[in-house]
């Protein structure tokens, strides 16, 4: 019997059963790799090769391979670092904050979004490590007992806070993601026909059987992890913004940075999730699970965070004028009208103007428009970080030391290379892991699918809010 809710759109369309969900999600895991996937992987591997070559050049010849100079000591490396970390914010936001808010539409996108988070943080971590110049001494950032007279790390430094924030964020996100994967690995294990697949997925599934006791604990663990990850995700970009805000550089020394960076991170993260999910749902035929309703919900988050970012840009400008500080005022006038004016206006156009198109319902629900706008947002957010970093540095307090920054081929290679690294990891994930959280989608199927089952017997304290959309 077909049931279309008069209030909410169903989150799973096409009248799916539990078994259909298993089939649809496991299909690409069990099938042989298709040509399109192999072609995409080949392109990504070319990117990865560029990354390896550029990294080799950086390590062999040193940071001099990059376009940095004595005035602009931070440029593409930190821009790319902040860009990737920002992209890595959507996954945990979707799985943690939306879990706490009981937003059921998260269930079919959280898996891929969390995977994206983890891969984006891996890409982000490459930049500060490479910028160290001697990455084999990277362990010096940890407070380890040492032979330098027990000289400890400086806990007053935001750069050290970053070490703790990024590594905690990465490991907690990884654990959260893996906990969610365990029941789905068990599903694949129990369907596997080949001995290698069965043993591999048995190993990955940690011996999960789906007993009521285990599910009860699993739900508790998910909820507490969501509660822990929520302040964590907000802390990460707050601390990243403090790398700038605690310095005394005009253009960086502002109290608005933490909320402004967090909003920007969510903005760019959702854009990247949408870019990837629009392709993934098409390639893996998951249109019934990642519906237009999902796309529209994410677009609403984009318009909210995009508007916050827009207000932040204007506030920064106002405060620069209102502060009466000459250097601060110059930093902002230089951003908009100086030699990097094109970067500033690219940022303004992509981040402030384009997302406003999502006020129109037809655009919010158009896949093509959404795809194009999310690409614009990703470009705009890259320019935002470039503008903040390079334009604040390149004209400092002494006009005699003013300089311009231009990237070398190695700078470009590392950046393009991390995109290759990201897509290599994402494509491997998409082939061998279940891209949609089967267990969670099954748990919302009864309350939010096109098929309305007739409840047999009475409801025993079943999820209270799951039946709000069914009218007897």
């Amino acid at each position: 019997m077909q049931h279309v809710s008069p209030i909410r759109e169903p989150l799973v369309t096409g009248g799916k059963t539990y078994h259909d969900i298993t089939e649809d999600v496991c299909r690409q895991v069990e099938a042989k790799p298709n040509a399109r996937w192999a072609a995409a992987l080949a392109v990504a591997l070319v990117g990865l090769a560029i990354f390896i070559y550029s990294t080799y050049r950086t390590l062999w010849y040193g940071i001099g391979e990059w376009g940095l100079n004595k005035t602009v000591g931070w440029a593409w490396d930190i821009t790319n670092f902040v860009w990737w970390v920002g992209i890595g914010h959507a996954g945990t936001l979707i799985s943690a904050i939306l879990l706490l808010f009981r937003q059921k539409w998260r269930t079919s996108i959280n898996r891929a979004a969390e995977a994206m988070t983890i891969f984006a943080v891996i890409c982000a971590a490459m930049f500060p490590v490479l910028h160290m110049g001697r990455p084999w001494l990277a362990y010096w950032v940890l407070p380890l007992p040492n032979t330098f007279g027990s000289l400890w790390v400086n806990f007053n430094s935001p750069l050290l806070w970053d070490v703790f924030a990024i590594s905690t964020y990465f490991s907690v996100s990884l654990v959260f993601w893996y906990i969610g994967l365990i029941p789905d690995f068990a599903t694949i294990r129990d369907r596997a026909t080949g001995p290698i697949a069965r043993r591999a997925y048995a190993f990955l599934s940690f011996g999960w059987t789906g007993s009521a006791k285990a599910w009860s604990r699993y739900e508790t663990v998910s909820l507490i992890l969501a509660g822990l990850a929520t302040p964590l995700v907000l802390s990460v970009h707050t601390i990243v913004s403090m790398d700038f805000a605690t310095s005394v550089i005009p253009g960086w020394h502002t109290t608005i940075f933490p909320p402004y960076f967090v909003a920007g991170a969510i903005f760019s993260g959702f854009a990247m999730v949408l870019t990837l999910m629009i392709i993934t749902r098409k390639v893996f035929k998951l249109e019934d699970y990642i519906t237009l309703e999902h796309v529209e919900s994410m677009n609403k988050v984009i318009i909210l965070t995009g508007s916050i970012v827009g207000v932040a840009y204007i506030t920064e400008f106002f405060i620069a004028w209102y502060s009466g500080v000459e250097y601060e005022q110059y930093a902002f006038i230089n951003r908009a009208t100086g030699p990097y004016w094109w970067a500033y206006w690219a940022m303004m156009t992509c981040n402030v103007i384009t997302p406003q198109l999502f006020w129109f319902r037809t655009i919010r629900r158009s896949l093509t428009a959404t795809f194009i706008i999310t690409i614009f947002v990703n470009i705009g957010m890259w320019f935002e970080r470039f503008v903040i970093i390079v334009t604040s540095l390149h004209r400092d307090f002494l006009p005699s030391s003013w300089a311009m920054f231009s990237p070398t081929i190695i700078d470009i290679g590392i950046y393009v290379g991390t995109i290759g690294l990201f897509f290599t990891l994402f494509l491997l994930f998409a082939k061998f892991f279940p891209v949609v959280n089967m267990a969670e989608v099954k748990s919302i199927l009864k309350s939010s699918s096109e098929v309305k089952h007739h409840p047999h017997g009475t409801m025993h304290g079943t999820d209270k809010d799951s039946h709000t959309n069914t009218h007897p």
Partner: protein
Amino acid sequence: MTKKFVLGIYDDEDVLLQAIENVRAAGTKIYEVFSPYPIHGIDDVLGIKRSRLPIVAFFCGLFGTSFALWMQIWMLGFDWPMIIGGKPHIALPAFIPVTFELTVLCAAFGMVITFFIVTKLKPSFKVNVFDKRSTDDKFVMAIEVTEGVTDMNALNDLLRSNGAIEVNEKEVIK
């Protein structure tokens, strides 16, 4: 030693919940229930107590907070004091971010490791599943059979009359 189980297979969570209640009311002890996804309300009907994992998380978090504060205060305040940016040796506001991160890290890992231990989840190549469909689309109620005591026909009838689509027997080597 082999143990024998009777498995009632269900295909709907609400039927299952009602069946659990009726089976338990009839005085039959349920060994375990397996489902492809977490069923809300099953804890109450099965009599599963609330997990104490949040308490574990709290104390692990508390350990993280105290450890982080002790580490920073001892390292910068006592072991090798230095004046950094004119701040006091023990600059507590500057220690908050690292303290927060270590709190979250210890709480999350402490809880998850405890979860793996108490639920006996660990990487292993061999897994004993009662019915493989329980990770796909079926709900399985397992009842342990005591040779000579359990009335198999009555049990079969009880499960079937409560909506089981199949009733199977399974021997498990423990």
